[in-house]
């Protein structure tokens, strides 16, 4: 499938930036998303091919503007709704209620 994720040979992507002594996770939430990769598979919600396809279906602008673990989060959200694990809008409601409770 052709898409923004198929990056080999694209030009003008800018310099390769490296970071010394990089931690496994830069933010706590990245580790939580990483862990959900395992728990979501274990629950049988989807497989790795569906997971990748969930990333590859992202719009090009959003794909380029978001980080690796945000791609993962996007795919989890898409697939969990498509598989009926989460209802449409359920996540937004939970976010609102958590914010209400003080974050």
């Amino acid at each position: 499938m052709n898409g923004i994720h198929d990056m080999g040979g694209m030009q003008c992507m800018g310099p390769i930036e490296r970071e010394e002594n990089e931690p496994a996770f830069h933010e706590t939430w990245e580790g939580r998303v990483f862990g959900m990769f395992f728990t979501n598979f274990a629950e049988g919600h989807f497989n790795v091919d569906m997971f990748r396809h969930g990333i590859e279906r992202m719009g090009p602008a959003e794909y380029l503007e978001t980080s690796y673990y945000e791609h993962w989060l996007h795919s989890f959200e898409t697939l969990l709704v498509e598989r009926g694990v989460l209802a449409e809008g359920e996540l937004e409601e939970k976010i609102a209620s958590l914010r209400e409770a003080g974050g």
Partner: protein
Amino acid sequence: MTIANEGSSIMADDHTHNEPPSDTAMRVKALETLLTEKGLLDPAAIDALVETYETRIGPRNGARVVARAWTDPDYRQRLLEDGTKAIAELGFSGVQGEDMVVVENTGDVHNMVVCTLCSCYPWPTLGLPPIWFKSAPYRARAVIDPRGVLKEFGVELSEDVELRVWDSNAELRYLVLPQRPAGTEGMSEDELAELVSRDSMIGTALADAPAG
């Protein structure tokens, strides 16, 4: 290993944070909360996974494999013939390392690894990929200008060295077996492993020269 302190209080202790969590952190917290409430996720399992990948799974594992291959010709042979099996001999196996291919650098051939389509990476031997490996510029350029990329990483390959770029995929993961540096003849396996950097096993660096 330390984790980013910034934001670490967001999930760990809801009562002590001073700044509101970012939108993304909040989305993740909401998702984790929902799945936990539905009985589909155990937060303790995630804690354990995070700790495992922060402390126990990383490029030191791959360095053990390389050092063994440098010191044990039979092991090297097994490693090149069936990477997955030989790596498992040292206890490294599992998710994202199910099908490993080991490619050997020689005086004539240099190998480097990319995943142009996403960021496939051999977790059991190298841990989680660094940001640059996951970045658009590396994924784009590694296959169109690999010598230029290597130069940026400080590796100047002679023109007569063949450069092979391996594009990982969802199933197949590569590990580069770097060349053993000169002047390391008397060194032990443990000492040799210290010379094997993460990048040397991706192929964007050579193994370090011995000190002094």
